[in-house]
C-alpha cells in the first residue's frame, strides 16, 4: 500500500478533476411551481377568498352568455349536450372539515385546469363569435381573475403549506375538434366550473377566515 505506482496518482487526480470541474454542486433545486416565489403579501388569504367569491359571482352569467352565443340547442338541451360529468374537470372532493392544505391543493388543481380550459374556450370563441364582445370580455376577465387566484394559491402552497408540487390535469385541447365539439366541451367545462366554484366558496370561507 505504501507503494503507489508512479502515474496512478496523477491519473486519479485527473479523473477526479474531470468529474468535478464544470459540474455544479447539488443543491436543493426548487420545484417549477415555487420558482421565483417570494413571500406572500399579508392579505393574500383575504384576497384569495375575494377572488373566489368574485369568480363565483360572475360564473353564472358567463355560462349563460356562453350558452346564448352557441345557439340552439345548447341552452335548451343542456343535460343532453353538456353533461358536466363527462369532462376531465378535476374532482373537488373536499369539505369544510378537510385540512386547509388539502383544500388549497384541490383549489389549485381546479383553477389550474380552469385556466387552461379558459384558454381553449377563449380561443375558440374568438374564432366562432368574434362579434360577441361581452362574452369575450367576460372570458378574458375570468381568465385574469383565475390567474391571480392561481398566483395566490401558489404562494400559499409554497410558503405556508410547503407544497412544492401539485399534479394537475389540463383537459383535452380543443384544437382539431370540430366546431360542435368545441362548443360542447366549453359548455361542459363552464357548467362544471359554475358548480365547483360555488362549492369552493362554500368550503373555503371558514378556513380563510380562520387563517
Amino acid at each position, binding site marked *: 500500500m505504501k507503494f503507489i505506482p508512479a502515474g496512478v496518482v496523477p491519473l486519479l487526480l485527473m479523473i477526479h478533476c474531470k468529474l468535478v470541474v464544470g459540474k455544479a454542486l447539488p443543491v436543493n433545486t426548487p420545484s417549477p411551481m415555487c420558482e421565483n416565489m417570494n413571500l406572500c403579501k399579508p392579505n393574500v388569504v383575504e384576497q384569495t377568498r375575494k377572488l373566489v367569491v368574485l369568480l363565483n359571482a360572475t360564473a353564472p352569467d358567463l355560462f349563460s352568455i356562453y350558452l346564448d*352565443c*352557441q*345557439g*340552439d*340547442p*345548447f341552452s*335548451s*338541451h343542456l343535460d*343532453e*349536450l353538456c353533461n358536466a360529468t363527462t369532462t376531465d374537470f378535476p374532482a373537488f372532493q373536499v369539505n369544510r372539515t378537510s385540512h386547509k392544505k388539502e383544500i388549497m391543493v384541490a383549489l389549485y388543481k381546479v383553477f389550474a385546469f380552469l385556466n387552461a380550459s379558459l384558454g381553449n374556450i377563449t380561443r375558440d*370563441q*374568438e*374564432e*366562432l*363569435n*368574434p*362579434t*360577441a364582445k361581452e362574452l369575450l370580455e367576460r372570458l378574458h376577465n375570468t381568465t385574469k381573475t383565475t390567474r391571480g387566484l392561481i398566483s395566490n394559491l401558489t404562494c400559499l402552497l409554497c410558503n405556508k403549506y410547503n407544497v412544492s408540487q401539485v399534479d394537475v390535469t389540463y383537459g383535452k385541447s380543443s384544437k382539431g375538434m*370540430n*366546431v*360542435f365539439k368545441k*362548443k*360542447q366541451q366549453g359548455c361542459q367545462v363552464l357548467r362544471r366550473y359554475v358548480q365547483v366554484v360555488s362549492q369552493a366558496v362554500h368550503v373555503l370561507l371558514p378556513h380563510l377566515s380562520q387563517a
Partner: protein
Amino acid sequence: MWDNPSLRCLLAIAFLHLLSLIYSQETGFPEAPWSLKCITHDLNRMICSWDATSSANLGLTYKICYTNSEPFSPVCIETGEKRADIPVAMGSTNIQITTLNASGTPLATETFVLPEENVSLIPLTPQILNLNADFSTYTLYMKWNDSGSVFQHELDASWQIQILRKETMETVTLMNYDSKLTGKDSILSWNWTSDIPLECTSHHVKIRCYINDPYFSGRTEWSEWSPIKTVPGKDTKLSSAVVFPQDKVVLVGSNVTFCCLYNEGESIKYMKYGSKSYSLLHLSKWSSAIKVQNVSASISSGTNVWCSLLPDNAAGTVLFVGYAPDTPQNLNCETRTFITITCSWNPGRPTGLYRQRQTKYILFERISRENVTCKVDELNKKHHCDFPVHANQKIYSFTLGASNPLGRAESSLLIDVNQRVNLETPDKFTVSANSSTNAHLSWYIPGNFIQIRLLCQIEISNSNSERQLRNISMAGAENSNYRARVDALHPYATYTFRVRCSASEHFWRWSKWSETKKLTTLEAPPARGPDIWRERSPVRETLTVFWKPLLLSEANGIILSHEVSCYLRETMLEVPVPLNSTEIKLEGNDCLISVAAKNHAGLSPPSRITSVDLPSDNVKTELAIAMGNGIYISWHSDPNVTCGYTLKWCISSGSEPCSVDWETFPSNATDAVIKSALFQPGVRYNFSLYGCKHNGYQLLQNITGYMKELPPKVAPNFTVEETSSESILVKWEDIPVEDCQGFLKGYILYFAKGEKGTSKTNFMEEGSPELTVKNITDLTKKSLRILDLQGKTSYRLDLRAYTVGGIGPSKDLYVVTKENSMGLIIAILIPVAVAVVLGVVTSILCYQKREWIKETFYPDIPNPENSKALQFQKNICEGNTALKTLEMNPCTPNSVEVVETRSTVLKIEDTEIISPVADSELPEDGSDPETGSHVVVSYCPPIIEEEISSPLIDEPVGSSQLIYIDIQSMYQPQINPEEEPEINFVTTAGYKPQMQLPINSMKMECHSPTEEDLDKTAGYRPQANTNVWKLDSPDSPISIQSNNENGSFGSPCSINSRQFLIPPKDYEDSPTPNNTGWAFTNFFQNKPND
C-alpha cells in the same frame, strides 16, 4: 292418362329426340356443327362459336375454312374447341366447318354463309382503374381505360356509369358519358357529386360501354358491366357517434343533407337542425339522415345540427350558412409616400362568415406578377391593402380577388402611380417672421417624391377671418422638410397659417391640412398721417388741433404718441396716446400745423392743415336728409375751393364737452352721406361745411339734420282760449327741439263730440262720422278757431305734432260750447204768449157768457133734465141702452122721521157723499151726535121703481151711470156681521128704513129671490154697499162694488162721481173734508169760489 305429368315429360323428350333425328338425317351426320354465332370486340376479328353433338367422341377436332366474298382461297384452321377466331370481313364470310375424328377423318362438314349483319359488336368489358372520394365536396372521382387501341380507327363510344347506395344497392343515378376512341388507349375520368355526405353510407360504382361504328352493319350491343367499385362510408367501425357534414359552409338557400352515424347498440331518437326536428331517412343500419331545404343565414358561430341517441348519447355538427363574397366596390389605389400603394375598397354585402371562413383578399399586380395577401378584419369596415412601389414602374394593373369557401369575386384597377399621389398630412409645421410683411413656413412630408413636383397650398387667415390661399410649387424630395416664404403681409397683424400639398403635375387630391400656426408680423411706421382738423378760439387766440386715431391697418403697430408742430413757429409737441387733440397758442399769428403718428417703428408721414380761417358772411342753415343709417348732406360747389371740403360736427354725450368729428371730401364733391356709430335716431346734429381754399378755410354752410327722424317725443301743449256756442279757439305752443326728434311737419287736430270718460280708441276710430281732422302744416300758425260747432255740447280735442318719422303722442281737452240763449228765450216766450192770449180770450168769453154758463152748468136750482149727471143707465132703469135723466115729475115731499138712533156715529169724511137734504138738516158743523138721533129726511118717492138685482155692478169709474140710493139715515144700521151674507140677497121693495128691516124676514124673503119677488119689493132702495165706501179713497174701484146693501146714504148721488148733484150754497162754508184725493171735477166745482 294425360293427367300424369311424368308421362307427359317423357313424351316431350321423345318428341325432341325425334326431331333431332330428323335434323341429323337432313345434314346427314350427327357430328355436324350447327348454330354458328359470331361476335366481335374490335371489328377486326370475330369469335365464332357453334354447337355440335359431341356424343361419345371426345377426340373430335374441327377444321374451319373460311373465305370472304372476294375470290380468295380459303383459309383453314383446326381447333379442338367449338369456337374459332377468324377475321371480320366485309360483306359475308363463307365458313366451312368440318368435324374430324381423332384420326383426322372427316365425319361431317357444314358450310355457313355468315353475313356481317349476323355479327355482333360487343365492346370489351371496361375496368374501373381508380375510384376516389373527396369527402369534403361529396365528390367521387373515377378513372378507366377506354381501350381505344383495340379499334383501328376513331369511333364514338358511350359509357354508362351507375351509382348505387345503401346496403340494398339502390340505384342513385345512371349517368351517360360519351367519348371518342382515338385508336389509342386513353384514361377517361369522371366525377360525381353526391347530395349527401359520402361518409353517410357506402357508394358503389360500375360502368359499361357501347361502341357506335357507322360502317359496321352488324348488331352493336352494350358491353358487360364492369366489376363494382365501392367507396365505403363511415357508418361502420365508429369510435363514437358523429354527424356529417362537419363544419361545412354553404350558401344561403342551399339544400343540405345531414346524417348521423352511431354505433352498434345505439338508436337514433331524433335529429334537429337548430331547434327544428326533421323526419329521418335511414341510410343504413347505423346511419340516418335529414334533408334541410333552403337554409337561412346562420349566426356567427354557425347553426347546430345534432342527433339524440339512445340510450344516452348525442352528436352534432355545425353548419355555417352565408354568402359568397361580393365584388369589391370603389376600389381605389393611391400612394402617399411613393413607397407603397395603398388600395382601399368597400367589401359590399357582408358574407356572414367570420375568421377562418371570412373573405380573404389577394391583391395581384399583373405587370409585375406579384400578389399581396391582404390582412383584412371582417369586423372592420375599412378594407385596405398595401402594395410596394417598384422602381421604374409607373403603371400598375391591380386585380383584387376576394374569396371565401362559398365563392370568389374580383375587381380590377389600372393606375399611373404618378397620377395617384395623395400625400401624408404635412408634419412639423412651423412659422416664423423676420420682417413686417414676410413670414417663413416650414413643414415635413414623409415619402420619396424626387420624381415629381409638389404643389402646396398655404391658407392665410387674418384676425378678421379673411382667408386667402397661396399656391406654391416646389420640387419633391425624399423625407424632407419643405420651406416657403409668404410675403405681402400686413405689418403688425396676426395671421393663422396652415398648409396642404399634392402632386403638382397630375393633381389627384389634397392631403389633409396641417395643424394651424399663428404669427404676428413685426411693426412698421404708420402708413399715413392722421386725419386732422383745427378750431380757432376767437377769445383766447388759441387753436385746438384734432386728429383721428389711425385704423389698425394703417397704424402698422401700436401708436405711442402724436407729434404736433407749427411750421412757422418751429414748435413741436408730442401728445401721448390716447389724447387726440391739443391746443396751440397762436399769439396772433397763423401757422401751418403738422401732425404725425408715432409707433415703435417710426413716424408716419405728417398731415398738415393751416390755421387760417377766412371770413364768411351770410351763412345759411340748410336741412339734411335722414337716411336711416346716416345723414345725407349736399352743398353747392364752390369754384374757389381747391383743396376739398371739410364737414365738421360735434357730438355731445351727457355732460362732457362735445367731441369734434369731421370728414373731408374732394373739391368736386357736392354731397355725402355722413355715417357715425355715435349718431342716434331722433337726435338733431349740426354740421358746418368748410371749404378749403388756397389761403385758408372758410365756413360755407351750416346744416342741421337727423340720422333718422322719429315721431315727436311729446304732445304740443295747447289750450282753449275762447269758447262760444259755435266755435272754439285753440292755441298751442312749440315743442322743444330736443323733443321733436325730427323736423316738425305740422300738427293734426282731431275733434269730435265727446265727454270725459269716452275711450280714446273710440274717439280716434277711423270713419267716425263725428270725428273731424284738421291738418295744420303752417308751423308759424299757433292757433286755430274751430267753427260750426253746436251749442252747449261737449267736444273732445286732440292735438298731435308730426314729423317724417311719424305722429307724436296726443294731448286732449274737453270743451263744452256755450248755450244759445236766444233760442231758449224764444222757445219759452212763444208758448207763454199763446197761453196768455188764450187765457185772456177765454176769460173774456166766460165773462161775457157767465150767466149762460151759470144757468147751464151751475144753476141755483139745477134742472135735472139738463144734468147728465142725473141720467140713469137704461139697462138699470128701463133696460134701455139710452141714458135718460130723471124726470122731474111733480111729487109731494114726504118726511121720514128716523126715530132710531145710532150708538155709534159714522164719521163721514167725504163731503161729496153727504146728502144735501140731510145736510140741510144737520147743524153747520154737521157732526153733532146728539142731534143725529132724530133726523127728518124729505123724500120724494120715485115714480119709476127700479131695483138692481145684480149685486155686482162693475162699471168703469168714468161711466156716466148714476145709481140712486135709498134715502136713509146717515147712520149705519147695526147689523150682525154674521148675517151680512144673507142680507146681500135681500132686495126690498119701496122705501124701508133699513134699520127696521126684520132680519129674519129678510132671510125668509131673500133665500130664493125671484123676479116676482123683486117686483113686489120694487121701490127706492140704496144701490150701493156703504161698507165699501172708503171715505179716504173715493176713487178706489172697490167703492163701486155694491155687494152689500147694508149701508146707504139718504141723498141721491153718484157713487161714481162722489159729487153731490146739487151742492147747496149753504154748505159752501162747510168744513173742508178730510180728503187728500183730487178730482178734476173739484177744479170746476171750486172754481166759482176761486
